[in-house]
């Protein structure tokens, strides 16, 4: 393993019911690097994240984490049972090693101090996402993993959250691994993009990926770069498997969604 890397994954393969969800995926995450996984629904983004976090096992392949690596994870969604009364403060205190001081610090940093005494069941989507982000930051992570961090967040909030990510990286000195639908939204904040469709279609610097034929094949050409205009656009353009010489037994990704990606 590369001695400086935080996390290195080699040839990860995972099959579920004769469908290859992850097909020979390798990646290396360096300290302070921001890496974005991008790809259509059902392409294995969230599964890959879960595998890298150790929440799921692979059929073959190898993952090595730097010893003592602290991970902060912000899940795509977390719905809490209404029957448990829980305040935001109480929810955050459940994070192992969280202190009142660190909770206060990150609540302030994300401008949601006022939410602390509120019930978690009364929050809006955007507020809850921020609380989940605070939860991920509490462990002073070396690696911040964000699965679709802007889900349920309004347009303004999306921009703010994406601007926040490089700042958080600088403040914590951590690496960031995130999943996103939309490359153009995260472009400015990303060092490396991995375009995923079961296998790695292409990867590299966002500027290169956005002109890569495999990427265009998967997402279509964007005439302008204003973000948000084509948010659902890419669902029409999924002819990835086999189109660039990759004979993977992959079903059409959008239909073959196994997890909610």
């Amino acid at each position: 393993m590369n001695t400086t890397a935080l996390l290195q994954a080699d040839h990860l393969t995972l099959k579920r019911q004769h469908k290859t969800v992850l097909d020979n995926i390798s990646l290396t995450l360096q300290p302070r690097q921001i890496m974005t996984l991008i790809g259509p629904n059902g392409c294995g983004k969230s599964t890959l994240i879960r595998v890298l976090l150790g929440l799921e096992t692979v059929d073959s392949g190898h993952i090595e984490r730097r010893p003592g690596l602290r991970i902060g994870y912000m899940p795509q969604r977390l719905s809490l049972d209404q029957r448990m009364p829980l305040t935001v403060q109480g929810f955050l205190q459940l994070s192992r090693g969280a202190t009142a001081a660190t909770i206060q610090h990150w609540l302030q940093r994300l401008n949601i101090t006022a939410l602390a005494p509120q019930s978690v069941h009364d929050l809006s989507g955007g507020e809850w996402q921020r609380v989940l982000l605070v939860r991920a930051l509490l462990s002073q992570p070396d690696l911040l993993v964000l699965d679709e961090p802007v889900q349920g967040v309004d347009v303004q909030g999306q921009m703010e959250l994406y601007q926040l990510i490089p700042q958080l990286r600088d403040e914590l000195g951590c690496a960031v691994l995130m999943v996103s639908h939309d490359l153009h939204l995260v472009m400015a904040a990303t060092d490396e993009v991995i375009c995923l469709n079961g296998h790695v279609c292409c990867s590299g610097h966002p500027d290169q990926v956005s002109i890569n034929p495999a990427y265009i094949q998967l997402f279509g050409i964007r005439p302008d770069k204003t973000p948000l205009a084509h948010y659902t656009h890419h669902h029409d353009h999924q002819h990835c498997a086999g189109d660039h010489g990759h004979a993977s037994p992959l079903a059409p990704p959008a239909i073959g969604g196994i997890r909610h990606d």
Partner: protein
Amino acid sequence: MIDLWWLMPLAAGLLLALIAGPLGSFVVWRRMAFFGDTLAHGALLGITLGVLTDINLTLALILGSLLLALLLVPLEQRARLSSDTLLGIVSHSTLAIGLVTLSLTQGIRVDLMGYLFGDLLAVQTADVLWIAGAGAILLGLLIWQWQALLAITVSPELAAIDGYPVQRLKLLLLLMLAVLVALAMKVVGILLVSALLIIPPAIARASARSPLQMAVLASVSGMLAVLIGMWASFHWDTPAGPSVVVAATTLFVASLLLQPWLSRRAG
């Protein structure tokens, strides 16, 4: 000297309600209600085991429950919807097998009604000591692992990433539930054990602001239900176990009616 025979049943009921508060809260939060039911029904097998092997019935009950809980672990791991049917089959077949086996054991008479509906007034000092001893262990474990158990209930994934041993904690909760069910059988009976686990937390939910508050309030309302139920049982000569459950239900309805007022105060 005043006759204090009712002290033992009362102590048993109060102790059980005390432990059932927090454990029942977990049952409610984790949607394990049907699971508790299955454990209770299967506990009859434990009694059969005790009768056949002539070991202490309470011990046999606890062992039987623990064994069943271990067998049910794979079920708990699965998606909850699909395991409903399977739990139902296990639940009712173990009850039936227990009843059939008991009827086949010759020469031994077991007070079946007592186990089905509980016989609080037949509780003796030995039973109370069992409940107090096992209850102290359960409460100790709950307090010790409170944070961890809450964490895996809120999100097993985040808890796993935090480094909590999620599977072991789930198993711990299951085994604690099994012990409580075994202990509670003598008091409220197989058919009403779930009521003792679920109704008090439901009463507490209306006014609780935190998981801890809910657990404590559940204990308090459970104990209140025991007091009211036992008083009613003496007063009107009704069966004690069902009376306690009726009392709990009455408290629950009252909490529903008071909910607008309570939530305004809590909020």
